């Protein structure tokens, strides 16, 4: 069923690229007026085209696109079926139907989405040639079938109506052809001087094709220079490993093998390269196993409370600067030789007992332990980490760490590289500059004057998805094609290559970096397709013909045997002098990429803006995070705006209290305060890059803060909901909503989850009515009984499931104002509970979605039977029957129902209509909605199975959240069949239903959380809900 491209693809490109007209579009609306676009639509979305003919009908775009195939749904407002109330619909068949397109059936294509140059393999679901959903590619080593929020959300980026849609010369609209013309002119000039004045600035690049092209370019212009700059990448890791091994290597972790893990300011579960694979390894080991002793143990030492820290068995809040002395002290304890005296640190000294126990634990698990260091820490700490892992024998065979050839095409020090470029530009040595992607004008460190010096370049080109800060500085801006629109290739953490195939013709007619360079190299209009094939033609393995190799590679989403070669290295005995740990007056300022909008590339992405950031649950803003004590010392409460001064630079930032944050340290996130971005991102947050300097990329001392008196309302989906600091986590435990025990306690009381007041769950017999209403047809096959179990021990609160659910189920983005009014629509929310001491609370993550109660309180109170039960135990919600009394939500003890208070779903913006899943009704104003267990997937699976005459097998059917979850904490299936995975978990003694005491009989249940603390650090306590 695979095909090298989307429907009728090359023809479409021809149809578009030939035209100069389309390049004059400002917006889709305007675009719609042009024949070219209608033309294009006829081909891409045939049945939609008529709609574009009349402007009034445009809002029905999605409807017509899908509905004429009786697939999509808008307009749940039409009562009954009176067709005369609907606009008469057209059916526009293809003229030539592309092979393997079956109208009404989804196709799946394997490709990859990159972040910081490193790709995550995905499988994209497309309907009539428009991608509507991304899922992890099980064959890809970095995905293993899972997907994270950022990767998922790049799908929305594809359709972003604010994306750049033009080629612009000095901000005036021009054409790609005239751009190439101009470029070739200056290139000829450069050829004369061997390209001495030619510079290339790119983000991190692992793409073999792009690398090949750039090298070709450099070959043609020997004196030209290639600079790289990626603001949020593991620079320190690269440098640290070089320091340890004397050469560039890439590192891979086998977290699965580790019994004891120490994360030194490393948020490896949710951030950075290989996060999904690492999280999987961690999650698998959160299972006590048959001997109830199989869990790994995670120690986290970090300033900011991260996903990793919140999942740790032991978390030590330390200022970022104290991590080095901590690591050094530990390393010496572990007998790493040749290490100097650690710099004095009272904070570390105070933790002698902790370090003692930790060292012992690590020693006890030689070869099966793992020390991870975060990108924020200076290279020296990374080197230490490598040394410790070596000392513990973790880098041995089937150990937990292995080193390989670097995967970057050209590993360099990005800060130096950028600095060089700026120096050269300032000196006027640069005549031609190509900025291929990235947004250095915004992301450059404050001490590197990119914006100023770039002005000195006579001919500068920016290729980007948006007309952003950098585009504004360049003479030429070329709209870039989105990764899902263009051919390319990208490598994963272990070097495995994925060939990226386009899923749709460039919506706004952009070109990829590959195509642009082809153009510059004098092959204008050469397809990325050609170029990429060319790269791989000579890489074809022996005895295999290229076409088969090519097709298999694309089909599988990975190119076999492209993983980087493992290298055997040993850390140097002497790591050199300890870098002076700056200790200055005032606060330590910690810089991090934002958990959702990253370095600003996703600022205009509604899904990510509204996605509650892990742990903090903040949306639509960044903030200066600090501990409760610090805030109290400053007399600050959430939303108080402070002026943060650092190294002579100032920004104004709202404060947000983050329990468990290190004392005297403040964390700020990048990616906000953009000056040039789209409708979604404008006016959100403050710009942390303005304070950031290249000499201290992770953190630095000496920040001072001053209260401005201004306040902003921070739209956190949870914090604003409890006014006082008696942390609701305690309440949640008292109520048996979250049930926690240590592995040791679990050995003592395997049934601990059912102790105590709220432990009792009514048995089947405890209620009057158990019969199935209405009774099944006699002699018919047994119905499936759908159910879900969520393993709280494995859940890290990374929010991947939330976004997957949003993408799958057409869940609208409501905006900051509505979130402030707690009207966010996420069907699946991850509750974060702090428990205990605000200075270092234990954190519990609990995904909360519709429980599909067998005795659903919501159904009984609905006056119109808009929510009822089907025979498979689904609590179904029929939007078009709902009149919106909201009684069901009031009567839902779990509060998992979400109401369309206003017209939240965007029915107007055509490009956003494209992203909707045609198998799910788009809800209008005034109706209730909630998790449906992905009933559309159940139906599709059923059709597939029953047409073949069989039944749905366990595993054939996964919900969106389940497929996304990196740690596989969510399991869904038929609980009536004991052989299924979910049924086995339901039988587990840790399985409990939230508020089951109400006799709601929830179908969604939880595996009580297990922690695995070190008894030498944490004196054993009874599970708190005992007798509470």
């Amino acid at each position, binding site marked *: 069923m695979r095909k090298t491209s989307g429907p009728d693809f090359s023809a479409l490109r021809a149809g578009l690229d030939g035209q100069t007209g389309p390049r004059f579009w400002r917006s889709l609306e305007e675009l719609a007026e042009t024949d070219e676009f209608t033309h294009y639509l006829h*081909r891409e979305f045939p049945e939609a085209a008529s709609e574009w003919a009349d402007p009034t009908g445009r809002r029905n775009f999605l409807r017509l696109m899908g509905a004429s195939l009786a697939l999509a749904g808008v307009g749940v407002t039409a009562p009954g*079926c009176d067709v005369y109330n609907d606009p008469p619909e*057209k059916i526009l068949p293809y003229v030539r139907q592309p092979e393997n397109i079956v109208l009404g059936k989804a196709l799946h294509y394997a490709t990859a989405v990159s972040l910081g140059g490193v790709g995550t393999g995905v499988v994209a679901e497309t309907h009539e040639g428009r991608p509507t959903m991304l899922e992890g590619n099980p064959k890809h080593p970095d995905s293993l079938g899972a997907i994270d929020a950022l990767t998922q959300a790049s799908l929305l980026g594809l359709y972003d109506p604010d994306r750049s849609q033009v080629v612009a010369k000095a901000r005036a609209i021009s054409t790609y052809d005239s751009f190439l013309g101009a470029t070739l002119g200056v290139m000829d000039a450069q050829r004369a001087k061997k390209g001495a004045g030619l510079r290339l600035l790119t983000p991190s690049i692992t793409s073999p094709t792009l690398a090949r092209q750039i090298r070709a370019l450099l070959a043609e212009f020997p004196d030209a220079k290639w600079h790289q700059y990626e603001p949020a990448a593991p620079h320190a890791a690269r440098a640290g490993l070089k320091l340890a091994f004397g050469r560039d290597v890439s590192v891979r972790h086998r977290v699965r093998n580790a019994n004891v893990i120490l994360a030194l300011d490393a948020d490896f579960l949710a951030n950075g390269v290989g996060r999904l694979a690492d999280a999987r390894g961690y999650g698998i080991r959160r299972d006590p196993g048959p001997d109830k002793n199989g869990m790994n143990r995670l120690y986290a030492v970090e300033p900011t409370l991260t996903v990793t820290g919140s999942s740790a068995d032991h978390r030590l809040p330390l200022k970022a600067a104290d991590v080095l002395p901590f690591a050094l002290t530990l390393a010496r304890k572990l007998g790493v030789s040749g290490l100097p005296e650690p710099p004095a640190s009272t904070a570390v000294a105070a933790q002698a007992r902790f370090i003692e126990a930790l060292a012992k634990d690590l020693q006890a698990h030689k070869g099966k332990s793992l020390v991870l260091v975060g990108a924020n820490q200076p290279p020296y700490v990374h080197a230490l980490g490598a040394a410790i892992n070596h000392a513990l024998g973790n880098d041995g065979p089937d150990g937990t760490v292995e080193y390989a050839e670097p995967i970057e095409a050209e590993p360099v020090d990005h800060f130096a590289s950028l600095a060089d470029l700026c120096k050269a530009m300032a000196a006027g040595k640069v005549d031609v500059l190509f900025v291929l992607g990235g947004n250095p004008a915004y992301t450059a460190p404050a001490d590197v004057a990119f914006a100023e010096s770039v002005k000195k370049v006579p001919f500068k080109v920016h290729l980007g998805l948006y007309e952003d800060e950098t585009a504004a500085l360049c003479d030429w801006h070329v709209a870039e094609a989105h990764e899902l629109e263009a051919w390319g290739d990208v490598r994963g953490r272990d070097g495995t290559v994925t060939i990226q195939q386009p899923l749709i013709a460039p919506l706004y007619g952009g070109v990829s970096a590959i195509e642009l360079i082809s153009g510059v190299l004098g092959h204008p209009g050469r397809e990325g397709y050609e170029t990429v094939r060319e790269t791989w033609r000579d890489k074809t393995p022996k005895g295999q013909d290229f076409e088969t190799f090519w097709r298999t590679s694309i089909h599988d989403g990975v190119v076999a045997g492209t993983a980087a070669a493992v290298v055997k290295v040993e850390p140097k005995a002497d790591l050199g002098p300890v870098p002076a740990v700056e200790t200055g007056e005032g606060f330590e300022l910690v810089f991090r990429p934002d958990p959702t909008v990253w370095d600003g590339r996703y600022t205009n992405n509604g899904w990510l803006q509204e996605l509650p950031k892990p742990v903090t649950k903040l949306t639509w803003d960044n903030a200066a995070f600090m501990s409760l004590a610090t805030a109290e010392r400053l007399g600050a409460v959430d939303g108080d705006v402070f002026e943060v001064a650092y190294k002579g630079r100032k920004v104004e930032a709202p404060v947000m209290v983050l329990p468990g944050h290190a004392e005297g340290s403040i964390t700020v996130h990048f990616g906000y305060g953009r000056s040039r971005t789209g409708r979604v991102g404008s006016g959100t947050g403050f710009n942390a890059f303005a304070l950031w300097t290249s000499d201290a990329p992770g953190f630095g001392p000496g920040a001072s803060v001053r209260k401005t008196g201004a306040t902003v309302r921070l739209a956190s989906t949870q914090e604003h909901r409890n006014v006082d600091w008696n942390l609701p986590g305690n309440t949640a435990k008292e109520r048996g909503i979250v049930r926690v025990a240590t592995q040791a306690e679990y050995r003592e009381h395997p049934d601990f989850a059912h102790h105590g007041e709220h432990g009792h769950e009514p048995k089947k017999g405890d209620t009057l009515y158990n019969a199935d209403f209405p009774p099944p047809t006699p002699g018919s096959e047994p119905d499936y009984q759908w159910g879900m179990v969520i393993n709280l021990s494995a859940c890290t609160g990374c929010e991947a499931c939330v976004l997957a659910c949003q993408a799958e189920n057409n869940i609208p983005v409501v905006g900051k104002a509505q979130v402030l009014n707690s009207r966010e629509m996420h069907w699946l929310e991850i509750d974060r509970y702090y428990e205990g001491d605000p200075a270092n609370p234990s954190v519990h993550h609990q995904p909360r979605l519709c429980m599909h109660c067998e005795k659903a309180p919501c159904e009984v109170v609905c006056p119109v039977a808009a929510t009822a039960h089907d025979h498979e135990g689904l609590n179904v919600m029929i939007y078009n029957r709902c009149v919106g009394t909201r009684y069901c939500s009031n009567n839902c003890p779990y509060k998992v129902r979400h109401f369309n208070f206003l017209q939240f779903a965007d029915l107007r913006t055509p490009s956003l209509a494209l992203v909707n899943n045609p198998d799910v009704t788009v809800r209008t104003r005034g109706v209730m909605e909630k998790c449906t267990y992905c009933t559309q997937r159940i139906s599709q699976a059923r059709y597939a199975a029953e047409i073949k005459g069989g039944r749905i097998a366990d595993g054939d059917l996964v919900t969106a959240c389940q497929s996304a979850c990196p740690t596989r904490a969510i399991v869904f299936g038929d609980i009536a069949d004991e052989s299924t995975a979910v049924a086995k978990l339901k039988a587990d003694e840790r399985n409990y239903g939230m508020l089951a005491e109400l006799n709601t009989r929830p179908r969604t249940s939880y595996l009580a959380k297990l922690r695995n603390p070190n008894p030498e650090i944490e004196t054993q306590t009874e599970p708190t809900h005992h007798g509470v």
Partner: protein
Amino acid sequence: MAQVFHPSMNTFARVTIFGAVFFAVGLLGVVYAVFRSPYMTGQYVAVDQPIQFSHEHHVNALGLDCRYCHTSVETSSFAGIPPTETCMTCHSQIWRDSAMLAPVRESLAKNEPIRWNRVHDVPDYAYFNHSIHVAKGVGCASCHGRVDQMPLIWKDQPLTMEWCLGCHREPEKHLRPREEIFNMKWAAASEREQLELGRKLVEKNHVPVHRLSDCSTCHR
């Protein structure tokens, strides 16, 4: 003095009162009827098309199988509308210059789709799937009527939820053998035979009748 009305008013009063009652009842009846009438459902209304395509001719006279054009009816939710190419497979040979077929040729030449008018339009929040109905033994004619007798296509059934439920509640009244699905002319010899056969087919094709009127069967 005090007499306000003429004696006739007594009769008038009674008449109006009774009249009102009957009028109200009658009105309800009318509303009930109108909502089931072709005016609301579009039933039996032949829809004009850009090309006077006659199913009667192609199915009845030429004996084309439904699946020749509606290719995906057995595999997809959507039965499929033939691309212009399909028309041209024959019409590049026969009736090459017929004026009636000008739009088809134009479509191919201009690479612009033919704009058919939709006839069977299920509301967007109801998810109908052709393939499963075919697999379970629902014949084309059961919903689309005797297409082989329709010069211009029209809606043979009201397609109201009421109507859908009619069959979902008692499928045995409508199911037919697998091999007769695409046969326009097939009909059971008698009510009784249909019921016997229907019950057998319900068993054979695993039709979970009890589940067919669950909301989730059609709504998502």
